[in-house]
């Protein structure tokens, strides 16, 4: 399969699922009618539903899917490990800690975007700690260890907050937030996350050639003239910005960054730079599909996206492991 054909098919798939996401919802309206309402300017209730609820939800699904797919491909390429994922360096768990702190302290109620803002702040602090822990010249191994340590620390602090929560409602809210969801998001969330994510996407897009060179190892990449410490800084900055913003608006959504690059890698002939674009589109498609699924399977019950993603992702991972075992 040619690379162009792959990209075109993935783009078509994303467009199709985007439309499917727009026409899926609790309101008993046909697909044609709702799409007409989206375009028409009559100010009716259906137009409101389409523009204020479903459109931002679908756009966020694309943005978050792109962020997770792209970051997953970049992390796997950089660490040369097919089991790496964006959460590995602790960005999502530190973002989650920031959000939990905001929910617990009541800061989340201070203004509309206080919760995602706190999560973003958590992600920034997390990445700063990772860079400090792993040092300027540390290799892939140090980075993984630093990420594991940070994830463990933030997870423990999050549990501690839940453990000591004086208010059962706050604890409940925290647990639901951590499951990850795209329900009840607005264009405010889109506008808040978009510039940060876009910065992350641009940074990650620039790592393609360096990741390609890393296929043969760090020495080979260095001998090809690539500055590896600069590559690492750009890559970590990109992952932190895009995944931090994604976690901030939607909570923790796992498996996308792990499964999507893994599934698409054989289709790009193992090329780390081509995988970036393919994975970004694949991530968007998977997230849109999962977000349609949560609304179709249990309509009106607010099934959480992160739960469905884990239910879908875990069997796929098991299948991958099964196949890898067969090869070795």
């Amino acid at each position, binding site marked *: 399969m040619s690379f162009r054909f792959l990209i075109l098919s993935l783009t078509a798939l994303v467009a199709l699922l985007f439309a499917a996401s727009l026409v899926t919802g609790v309101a008993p309206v046909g697909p044609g009618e709702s799409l007409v309402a989206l375009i028409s300017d009559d100010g009716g209730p259906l137009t409101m539903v389409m523009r204020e609820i479903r459109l931002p939800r679908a756009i966020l699904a694309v943005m978050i899917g792109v962020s997770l797919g792209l970051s997953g491909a970049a992390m796997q390429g950089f660490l040369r490990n097919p089991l790496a994922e964006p959460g590995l360096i602790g960005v999502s768990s530190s973002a989650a800690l920031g959000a939990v702190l905001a929910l617990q302290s009541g800061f989340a109620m201070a203004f509309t975007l206080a919760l995602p803002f706190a999560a973003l702040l958590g992600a920034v602090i997390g990445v700063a700690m990772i860079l400090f822990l792993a040092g300027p010249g540390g290799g892939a191994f140090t980075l993984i260890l630093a990420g594991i340590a940070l994830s463990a620390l933030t997870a423990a602090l999050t549990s501690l907050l839940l453990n000591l929560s004086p208010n059962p409602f706050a604890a409940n809210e925290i647990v639901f937030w951590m499951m990850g969801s795209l329900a009840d998001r607005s264009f405010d969330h889109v506008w808040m996350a978009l510039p940060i994510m876009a910065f992350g996407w641009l940074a990650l897009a620039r790592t393609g050639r360096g990741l390609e060179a890393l296929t043969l190892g760090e020495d*080979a990449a260095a*001998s090809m003239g690539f500055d590896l410490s600069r590559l690492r800084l750009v890559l970590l900055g990109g992952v932190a910005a895009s995944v931090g913003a994604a976690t901030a608006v939607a909570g923790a959504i796992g498996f996308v960054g792990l499964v999507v690059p893994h599934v698409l890698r054989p289709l790009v002939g193992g090329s780390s730079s081509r995988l970036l674009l393919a994975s970004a589109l694949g991530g968007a498609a998977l997230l849109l599909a999962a977000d349609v699924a949560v609304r179709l399977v249990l309509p009106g019950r607010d099934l959480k996206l992160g739960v469905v993603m884990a239910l879908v992702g875990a069997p796929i991972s098991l299948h991958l492991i099964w196949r890898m075992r067969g090869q070795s």
Partner: protein
Amino acid sequence: MTLLTLENLTARRGPCAVLSGISLQVGTGECIGLIGPNGAGKTTLMRAALGLMRAEGQSSLAVLPPSVRATQAAWLPQSPEIAWPVTVRHLVALGAMARRGS
């Protein structure tokens, strides 16, 4: 024409000198095999000559800026296998990345 000149190259791992005082000239058209038992310092010599590790003494390649050096020397390390299946065409093309420029 001389392609590579090493003068009194010394490389250390901690307090231990792996190479000491290596001098060598490689000219156009020469094909050189480096033979030695495990741990003799063959890889260390290559890495030090390329400037991939710190070393004392002179190497004509190590002093070049990385992007220029990349057009004059290629290094295919004896690495553990590549993390995932890569097509042969793609693998061969990787070698030309530094020369291709953009």
